[in-house]
């Protein structure tokens, strides 16, 4: 057992792992702090306000000030709560948020001939990520599922009505969109041929700007991923979890002081990480566009954060622009549109890849094979679109009926009532 554990692990490796972990924590926390500031500032500007501008230059230290204040606030554990789970939930929420960050390559030189790693003076070869997990994508999916436990248990253990409703909603929403999230990721895996995040970045770097998975996978998985990712983060317009007009604060209604801060931190950390995942999987991560490589690994760092900023701004923009969805709309969008579309698109992409390889197929010619696959894929996507259409019409009619209003009569109804009047009365 001792041999198994110590085999090939030198003191240098351990020091390196420690340094990488500390740097990752610092980047994670600073990025989250700045994200909170960024969101408040941008939303303010979009709403014609100024936003935080007193604490530090441009109000940059506002988040820090808020955090320090929360340290000094009394912590209240409600009398009817399940004390153990109530205290455990912040850990379950924040630890997966940190862990997802571990697999993201945040810097590195991915120019032709380089694989994003550097050789340190001690002789170790390392990439700019805490751990290059071979099944990075699966790890990301696992962590985003684990984060749900924090929210679910926080709401349940509060022993209160609003948090319980919020957490049940959160769970149903997260699992609905997780399916779409995973299926859109399958397209990325298909074109990259690997599950490791650094491998996916490398596969994209080879193709330059037009090698980005966003373009190679044909945009559809990219949009599905953005919508499903926003829903997974419980951010507006999918923030039914903490819809403050209905549920007070959602799952964290009963949390106060530093425990509340942990949930808040986890939420914004997840936003930053989700943006980073989108950059890694669809935009080429730290690899440069148009061959504009500079300054070795540091250039990758600059590229990565430039791309990340784009998506963080997009998330904030969503919040400032879009109204919240109703619950039935949320479920319809996930199950009846996003899942069928990503399934269909996966088959389209698979068909195209196989045809490119010139494989011998079912029919005489490759063209016929591809047409067959395209037909099946389009059929699946059409089923999805029809389902959504039906669902929207049905729910609109039911809503009108439940208010005691008659639905808008169709041409047929009008024709039928006219004949009725002519014949009977």
């Amino acid at each position: 057992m001792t041999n198994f554990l110590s085999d090939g692990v030198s003191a240098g490796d351990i020091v390196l792992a420690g340094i990488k972990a500390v740097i990752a924590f610092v980047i994670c926390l600073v990025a989250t702090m700045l994200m909170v500031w960024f969101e408040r500032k941008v939303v303010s500007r979009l709403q014609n306000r100024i936003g935080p501008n007193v604490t530090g230059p441009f109000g940059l230290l506002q988040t820090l000030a808020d955090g320090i204040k929360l340290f000094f606030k009394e912590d209240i554990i409600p009398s009817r709560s399940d004390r153990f789970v109530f205290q455990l939930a912040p850990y379950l929420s924040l630890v997966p948020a940190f862990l997802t960050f571990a697999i993201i390559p945040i810097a590195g030189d991915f120019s032709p001939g380089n694989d994003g790693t550097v050789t340190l003076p001690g002789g170790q070869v390392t990439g700019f990520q805490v751990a290059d997990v071979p099944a990075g994508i699966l790890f990301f999916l696992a962590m985003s599922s684990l984060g749900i436990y924090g929210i679910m248990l926080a709401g349940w253990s509060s022993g209160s009505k609003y948090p319980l409703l919020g957490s049940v909603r959160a769970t149903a929403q997260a699992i609905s969109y997780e399916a779409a999230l995973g299926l859109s990721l399958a397209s990325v895996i298909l074109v990259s041929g690997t599950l490791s995040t650094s491998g996916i970045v490398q596969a994209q770097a080879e193709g330059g700007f037009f090698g980005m998975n966003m373009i190679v996978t044909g945009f559809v998985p990219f949009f599905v991923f953005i919508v499903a990712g926003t829903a997974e983060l419980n951010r507006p317009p999918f923030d039914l979890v903490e819809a403050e007009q209905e549920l007070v604060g959602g799952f964290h209604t009963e949390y106060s002081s530093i425990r509340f801060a942990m949930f808040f931190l986890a939420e914004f950390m997840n936003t930053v990480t989700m943006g980073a995942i989108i950059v890694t999987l669809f935009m080429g991560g730290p690899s440069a566009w148009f061959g504009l490589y500079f300054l070795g690994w540091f250039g990758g760092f600059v590229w990565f954060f430039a791309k990340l900023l784009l998506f963080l701004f997009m998330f904030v923009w969503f919040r400032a622009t879009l109204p919240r969805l109703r619950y039935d709309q949320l479920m319809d969008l996930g199950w009846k549109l996003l899942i069928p579309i990503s399934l269909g698109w996966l088959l389209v992409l698979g068909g195209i890849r196989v045809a490119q390889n010139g494989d011998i197929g079912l029919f005489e010619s490759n063209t016929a094979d591809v047409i067959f696959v395209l037909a099946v894929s389009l059929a699946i996507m059409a089923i999805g679109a029809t389902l959504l259409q039906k669902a929207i019409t049905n729910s609109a009619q039911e809503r009108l009926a439940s208010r005691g209003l008659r639905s808008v009569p169709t041409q047929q109804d009008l024709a039928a009532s006219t004949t009725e009047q002519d014949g009977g009365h």
Partner: protein
Amino acid sequence: MSDFLREYLLVAIFGLMAFVLVGAFLGLASLIRPDRPSAGKIENYESGVDPIGSMWSQSQIRYYIFALLFVMFDVEAVFIFPWAVRLEAFGFFGLVEMVIFIFILALGLAYAWRKGVLRWA
């Protein structure tokens, strides 16, 4: 130790450090914050009035059905991921198999819809 396991060991250490960090935040706060609970303060929040009825209420059965559907699609993802990594090797044979697999799943989704499970009215 193999490289494969070493990366996961790094993740485990990182996770442990994250756990300690969160614990440190909470521990530090518990040292410096005031603690003066009172009966009214630790009562559950219900828009300012005294809470009514039991707090451990039941929730809708349809949430459970969505959970079942989710299991179906998540298991499917487990099958699709390895296929997607090795599509080049399987070629057209693999593709046809996946078309059949996904078609059956699409049938399942259509069935769920036909039964009115997906309707959230």
